């Protein structure tokens, strides 16, 4: 994973391996800090991370479609039947 002549190629591999867990705040505090330190020091990995942040944001933006009005109506009337037909 070393590119651009990073002084700590092992750190690049480490960061690459844990990048998503880092992004999702799933690492223990010490490992999180270790990755953060590497990203602060390595331009290449920092760039990778910036890219992953954008991908994450783009995915979050595009995948939130509103429910069609028809579905909303269907569900509301479905719940109304729950009221009338006791289980």
């Amino acid at each position, binding site marked *: *994973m*070393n*590119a*651009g002549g990073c002084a700590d190629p092992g750190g690049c591999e480490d960061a*690459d391996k844990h990048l*998503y*867990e880092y992004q*999702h705040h*799933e690492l223990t505090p010490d490992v999180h800090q270790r990755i953060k330190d590497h990203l602060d020091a390595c331009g*290449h990995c920092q*760039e*990778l991370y*910036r*890219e*992953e942040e*954008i*991908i*994450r944001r*783009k*995915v*979050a*933006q*595009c*995948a*939130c*479609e*509103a*429910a*069609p009005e*028809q*579905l*909303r109506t*269907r*569900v*509301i009337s*479905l*719940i109304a039947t*729950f*009221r009338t037909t*006791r*289980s």
Partner: protein
Amino acid sequence: MLLLDDPAALVDGVGALGSRMMPDPQDDLTERFEAEVIPLLDTLYAGALRMARNPDDASDLVQETVERAYKGFKSYTPGTNLRAWLFRIMTNAYINIYRKKQRQPQQSSADEVEDWQMHKAASHTSAGLRSAEVEALDGLPDSDVKRALSSIGEDYRLAVYYADVEGFAYKEIAEIMGTPVGTVMSRLHRGRKQLRVLLEDYAAERGLVRRSGEES
């Protein structure tokens, strides 16, 4: 499955409600169900689209989820993550109803795609990135991102959806998908790597960025 299929949990739920609520616990339960579930319809529909992948089937899946959720609502513990609980029900409904219909012929082709993509992903990373690439990705239209998301394997897509759109913790995703956390992590890893390769390709197709290895 845990909550839904456990009759003891249902009975407990009734007992707890019955002792606390005044005249008609069923009415109260329905009110609460409506008040809590209706605001989540958009979320449920967006999630259903990641599974069923066309608007009609996604709507049917949401309706099925709502029906099943209502039947099991007494066993839902107020204050716990309702979204996660509903997605767990939706996942089961999807597996029961839709996946059976498909008989998974796409599974093997998805694996093939994955192999060349992973190979490409590896070469991409080692080739390094140009800073322009960040801006190029940012400039991609939503349609490209949706296309990429729908191109990756279903389990990968759902893991990415739960983590990146819904913001669920890995542990919650594991419960929703019925897998160990390690499986969630590897699905996320592979899914995101594949997404990245696809998005870089789209950016190159649109002339937003040069492909790695191309001469300037």
